């Protein structure tokens, strides 16, 4: 029965977001001019393109994140049934986590975790 209430809550949420933006659009004053609608950059006209080159570090962290997020997905069902499956499964998961941790150590050693 949880799903029905969840749907109700989702409807409430959508209604709240829609009403908030809708009402504000209706009652707020509005005066348009072209200067006002420019992207903000310290008050002067924007310089160059917006899609600036950014640090490759973000990309590296996203890659390592993927590995560990998948690891967590694997660990959840294991953690729930740990009491039934016993010590053997625990040692196996420790080995699994250890191998992934070696990966993290490798990335660390290679300098992928260093922010510059």
């Amino acid at each position: 029965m949880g799903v029905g209430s969840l749907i109700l809550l989702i409807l409430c949420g959508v209604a709240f977001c829609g009403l908030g933006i809708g009402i504000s659009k209706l009652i707020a004053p509005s005066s348009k001019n072209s200067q006002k609608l420019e992207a903000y950059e310290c008050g002067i006209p924007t310089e160059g393109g917006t899609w600036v080159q950014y640090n490759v570090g973000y990309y590296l962290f996203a890659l390592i994140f993927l590995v560990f997020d998948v690891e967590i997905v694997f660990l959840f069902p294991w953690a729930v049934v740990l009491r039934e499956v016993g010590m053997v499964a625990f040692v196996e998961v420790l080995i699994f986590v250890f191998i992934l941790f070696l990966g993290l150590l490798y990335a660390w050693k290679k300098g992928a975790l260093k922010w510059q």
Partner: protein
Amino acid sequence: MLSYIIYKAILVVIVFSITLVAAMYSTYAERKIAGFLQDRLGPNRAGPFGILQPVADGVKMFMKEEMIPNVSNKFLFILGPSVAMFTSLMTGAVIPWGTSLTIAGHQYSLQVADVNIGILYLLGVTSVGVYGIMIGGWASNNKFALLGALRASSQMISYEVALGLSIIALIMTTGTLSIGEIAAQQHGWHWNILYQPLGFLIFIICAFAETNRAPFDLPECESELIGGYHTEYSSMKLGFYLFAEYTNMFISSAVIATLYFGGYNMPLLGRFVHDPNALVLLGTFFLFCKICFFIFLFMWVRWTLPRFRYDQLMNLGWKGLIPLAILNIAITGIVMWITGKIN
């Protein structure tokens, strides 16, 4: 059946409005506490002790002119704050606000949806919250907003790993993914903080980072990025971003209180109160006391600690918290083995 549907509808509306009101008054509390910690008064003009300040702020947000920069992607620009607000409101569904009230022989649970994968739901919904910031920052087509959004998403995914790992250690001891059951297991003094002190420490640090609160508020650090991902936002859409932050804070406090501090359980309460319904309502009251304490902690930390530098933030996440969380899993398993919980 009809009465059941009506009760669920009432419960949903109550939980929804409590989340909203709590978030509203968190903004007031933040300013009052900031005033208190800095030895000044804080808002005190709107109503007695400034108690109507959040209402005045809300009206102001509604009345402000709406601006959508002409270089931005209009649809995504509106979608961003809506997603952030929406996901933060959805998380309240799986929190058990109390056990069951008994009215005329019927049991009425105070949890909106007791799904058996409550924790996964919570993690999933909060992960979608990253998109709200990412979409908004990207769609603004503004350099500061883009950098703020990148920082925010990078920070949130980094701390999500440690958050997930610390929760896994908790799941190992509780053996269930249902938040209702986790709360019920902690009756009396069996609060999970006693079994998972290290896990709790990792969890609360990650909760600070996930909600973008100081000292992890780099996505919107004013001195470098103007307003971060919401530089271009105004009127109610800005309001949604700010409001989503406070809603997230309220919900994280509720999650911390429920997962680690016994939720609605309060030791010794059963000795003094015997009416079951009064006991349930008192439990809910104590849950809210715990939540208020954690909200206060969030604010206390914000006005005490300086902001991290970005490399320090990443170092703490990847080189500090993740190895520590893995260590915590190993320790938890070994302790469970020694005490004979797993064979």
